[in-house]
């Protein structure tokens, strides 16, 4: 019972043309058999009417039937094989097309089909080849575009890095200049005036000099404030943590918000200048945004310095905003873009989470490559 079923199944999985041919041949064989039966019956009737003895009729029919069966079987076998052969040649272009499509789908864009003659299948093959040519061309163009984009992006990053470095260097220079030169000169002025004041007896003149001295003193304080604002010397001389502490204190006092700074640090070693500057500027920008937009009461600044990366989180409980809807030209967007760029330049990740009424949180994670643990740093999964 199973065998014919199997054969039927195998027919079903054969190419379409084979199915058709085998069905036709099966019909032919069955018809042949019916015709033979009919002929035999007719032959017997005719012979009987001619009064030919029954034995002779039977033996003639037996010989005839045998020959007919053998001929039918042989013809069927030849027919099936012929049909299979014809089917193979008829379906070859279609199979070729299917094979080539598969290759293209898998990414081998050089796959083409060979066409013969001018029939419909040949036309289909030619059209297919044209389509493959176009796909190949467009893909090459797209790849070239992507390459160019990547090159541009790299140039942009390098330029940005230069701009940021140049800006920091300039700030350091001006801050130092104000601190060391202008500050010293003003101090000299104050001391000179003090000296003059002590030597003069005329109360009017003493008063005038004293006022000048106060003016110089106020100016000196202003110069100092300006220098710290540009670039706090603490950041370079002592470190990131005291610099952020100082900045937070000034901001908390000036804008009456509660800023809590929490540091977790395994390794007391200082971070690289680039990383320290970036983190300091991000805190600065983050707090500036909070004061400008957030209307926050509570602010947390969290710094978690690990062996392989440093995480900075700035969170406020202010009004929040829809991160997706900040216009590109808005100040706030530029501020966020600036923080993001600084992070990305150091191969870090930058995330901002906020929604109206939920406050805002900035997450910055910068990978560290410290001496001695470089290998571990390289193996570690990217920050994020």
């Amino acid at each position, binding site marked *: 019972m199973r065998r014919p079923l199997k054969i039927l199944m195998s027919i079903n999985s054969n190419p379409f043309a084979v199915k058709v041919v085998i069905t036709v041949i099966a019909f032919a064989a069955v018809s042949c058999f019916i015709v033979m039966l009919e002929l035999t019956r007719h032959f017997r009737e005719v012979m009987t009417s001619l009064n030919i003895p029954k034995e002779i009729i039977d033996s003639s029919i037996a010989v005839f039937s045998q020959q007919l069966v053998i001929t039918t079987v042989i013809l069927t076998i030849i027919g099936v094989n012929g049909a299979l052969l014809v089917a193979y040649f008829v379906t070859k272009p279609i199979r070729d097309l299917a094979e080539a499509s598969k290759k293209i789908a898998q990414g081998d864009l050089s796959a083409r089909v060979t066409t013969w003659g001018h029939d419909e299948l040949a036309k289909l093959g030619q059209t297919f080849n044209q389509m493959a040519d176009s796909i190949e061309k467009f893909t090459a163009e797209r790849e070239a575009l992507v390459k160019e984009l990547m090159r541009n992006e790299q140039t942009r990053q390098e330029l940005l890095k230069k701009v940021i470095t140049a800006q920091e260097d300039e700030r350091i220079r001006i801050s130092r200049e104000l601190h060391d030169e202008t500050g010293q000169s003003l101090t000299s002025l104050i001391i*000179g005036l003090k*000296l003059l004041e002590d030597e003069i007896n005329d109360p009017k003149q003493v008063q005038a000099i004293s006022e000048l001295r106060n003016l110089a003193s106020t100016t*000196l304080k202003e110069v*100092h404030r300006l220098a710290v604002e540009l670039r706090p010397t603490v950041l370079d001389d*002592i470190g990131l943590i005291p610099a952020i502490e100082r900045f937070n204190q000034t901001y908390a006092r000036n804008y009456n918000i509660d800023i809590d700074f929490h540091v977790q640090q395994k390794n007391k070693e200082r971070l690289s200048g680039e990383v320290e500057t970036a983190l300091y500027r991000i805190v600065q920008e983050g707090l500036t945004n909070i004061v400008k937009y957030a209307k926050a009461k509570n602010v947390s600044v*969290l710094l978690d310095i690990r062996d392989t990366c440093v995480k900075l989180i700035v*969170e406020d409980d202010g009004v929040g905003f829809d991160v997706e809807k900040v216009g590109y030209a808005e100040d706030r967007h530029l501020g966020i873009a600036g923080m993001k760029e600084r992070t990305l330049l150091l191969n870090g990740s930058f995330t901002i989470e906020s929604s109206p009424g939920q406050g805002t949180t900035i997450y910055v*994670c910068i990978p560290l490559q410290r001496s001695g643990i470089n290998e571990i740093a390289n193996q570690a999964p990217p920050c994020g």
Partner: protein
Amino acid sequence: MKSPIKLLLVDDHTVLRSGLRMLLNSHKDIVVVGEAESGEEALEKIKELKPDIVLLDISMPGMGGMTALQKIKEISEAKVLMLTMHADEEYLKEALEFGVSGYVLKQAADTELIQAIKEVANGQVHVDSGLAQNLVKSMYHPSKQKNDSDSNLTDREKEVLKLIALGHTNKEIAETLMISVKTVESHKTRIMEKINCQKRSEMVRYALENGYINT
């Protein structure tokens, strides 16, 4: 009659040094015995002149004031008085660690300096009053009211708290716990209510104190 206080001026700014020299010499109990414009020169002059007090600037080309201070304390008995523009308590802290006897801001040189020199000569310590105040403030960390460690956090809230303390974003927490970001936000709000705090930093401290995360 007490002998005058012998003082060495160390500052890279020539005009400032000459002004200071005139100002100090105008006081009869102070005498400027020498000047130096860098840390290195100061160390040589100290060996040679044996001053009672060294008036030292912090920012100088070459050996800066902080390094010079350490070296001076190694080689001599001289007391060191910092005269500087740096109005950050961090510098003061560092200088105090290295054994400074006084810290005066250049901004207040005209009013405080003479007094400071006299006090230091007497063995006292003189620190700029504003800075001293900041230093004291920065050293005082009021222990925030200890949160009750049994704050009835649910298991889910404990998981969220731990992930927040580790610095994960709400989105990351949502993905880890297979819940929505909104749910993470409401867990966070509830945790803050339960442990009675207003800031993320306080949550992190709570998590540290109660062993949810390790230092």
